[in-house]
């Protein structure tokens, strides 16, 4: 297929599936909490709706950073789609993309001049110190498979069986990372409701729709990496089923846990990262 067509198709799939999965997550959470909940396509509808809402830019914002940072989020996750489903490139690139995602959270919060955004910005820096070690799971995968290239990891798994079974602690670490990126999760301190909407507080109207567009792609891509790297060799239906299962599981956890305060959240993540890294290396050695 034409490369550009491939990229556009994958971006569109990532956006649509990611949005619907977000909607599904809210629905499941609502049902667990005995509420009817919004329709499953609500997140998708919101994204579209925000594009035609009345928008304005705060007088205090750092222009043009305030707008450019939303485009930056979209750029990095389009890059993730290219590295992931389109070319099956290097996992290290995902590490870089994730690091830049934290920076976007940081700056989207601070560029508006809102105190809520600023607090979220501080928390983004703070949580980066916990989430980047979690992303070190990539190194464990590298130690196990001897490669960072996704297509080679898939080949490795077709010969040696799924990595989910051979390095389960690494899979757990990655799951915690996915969990911390989901809305309403115990680790979602940058979007905690105590600071309104965190770094998105002052990005309303079309910029919010734009951020939600990129976040849907981000959610799809995180699930895609998890399924590809730890199970591997799935067909599209397999991916869809896997994503629905993970989303449902995340929704179950989010529905029954409160948002932790920043210190507890970071310390929990760091502890899990430590257990994951140390445990995996010990199991790899013996």
């Amino acid at each position: 297929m034409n490369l550009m067509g491939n990229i556009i198709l994958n971006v569109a799939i990532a956006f649509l599936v990611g949005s619907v999965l977000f909607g599904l997550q809210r629905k499941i959470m609502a049902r667990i909490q005995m509420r009817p909940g919004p329709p499953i396509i609500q997140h998708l509808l919101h994204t579209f709706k925000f594009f035609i809402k009345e928008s304005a830019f705060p007088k205090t914002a750092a222009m043009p950073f305030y707008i450019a940072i939303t485009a930056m989020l979209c750029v990095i996750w389009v890059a993730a789609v290219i590295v992931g489903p389109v070319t099956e490139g290097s996992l290290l690139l995902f590490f870089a993309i994730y690091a830049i995602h934290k920076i976007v959270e940081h700056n989207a919060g601070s560029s508006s001049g809102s105190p809520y955004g600023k607090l979220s910005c501080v928390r983004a820096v703070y949580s980066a110190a916990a989430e980047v070690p979690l992303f070190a799971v990539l190194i464990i995968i590298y130690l196990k498979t001897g490669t960072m290239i996704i297509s080679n990891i898939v080949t490795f798994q077709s010969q040696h069986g799924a990595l989910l079974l051979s390095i389960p602690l690494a899979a757990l670490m990655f799951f915690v990372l996915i969990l911390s990126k989901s809305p309403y999760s115990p680790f979602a301190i940058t979007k905690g409701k105590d600071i309104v909407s965190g770094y998105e507080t002052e990005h309303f109207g079309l910029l919010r729709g734009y951020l939600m567009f990129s976040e849907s792609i981000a959610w799809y891509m995180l699930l895609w990496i998890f399924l590809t790297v730890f199970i591997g060799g799935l067909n599209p239906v397999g991916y869809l089923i896997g994503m629905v299962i993970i989303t449902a599981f995340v929704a179950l956890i989010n529905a029954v846990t409160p948002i932790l305060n920043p210190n507890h959240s970071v310390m929990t993540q760091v502890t899990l990262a430590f257990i994951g890294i140390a445990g995996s290396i010990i199991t790899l050695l013996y």
Partner: protein
Amino acid sequence: MDKLKTASWFIFIISVVSIVYALVFNPAVWIVYTIALLFIPLSILSFGLLSMARGKKEEEEDKRREPFIGY
């Protein structure tokens, strides 16, 4: 038409044209990646800047005033 709208139209047209160019003519791989990375996000952003509703000029003064007047 104000500056923001003109710039948005300009960016939107450029990005759509370059995406179509990459779709139709199949240029070298790195050109396609550059176009995809730059112009897919920019086309969505500029489309959003064009499609968003703008506040009315008359209402601007009301919005600027402090909404909380309970002192």
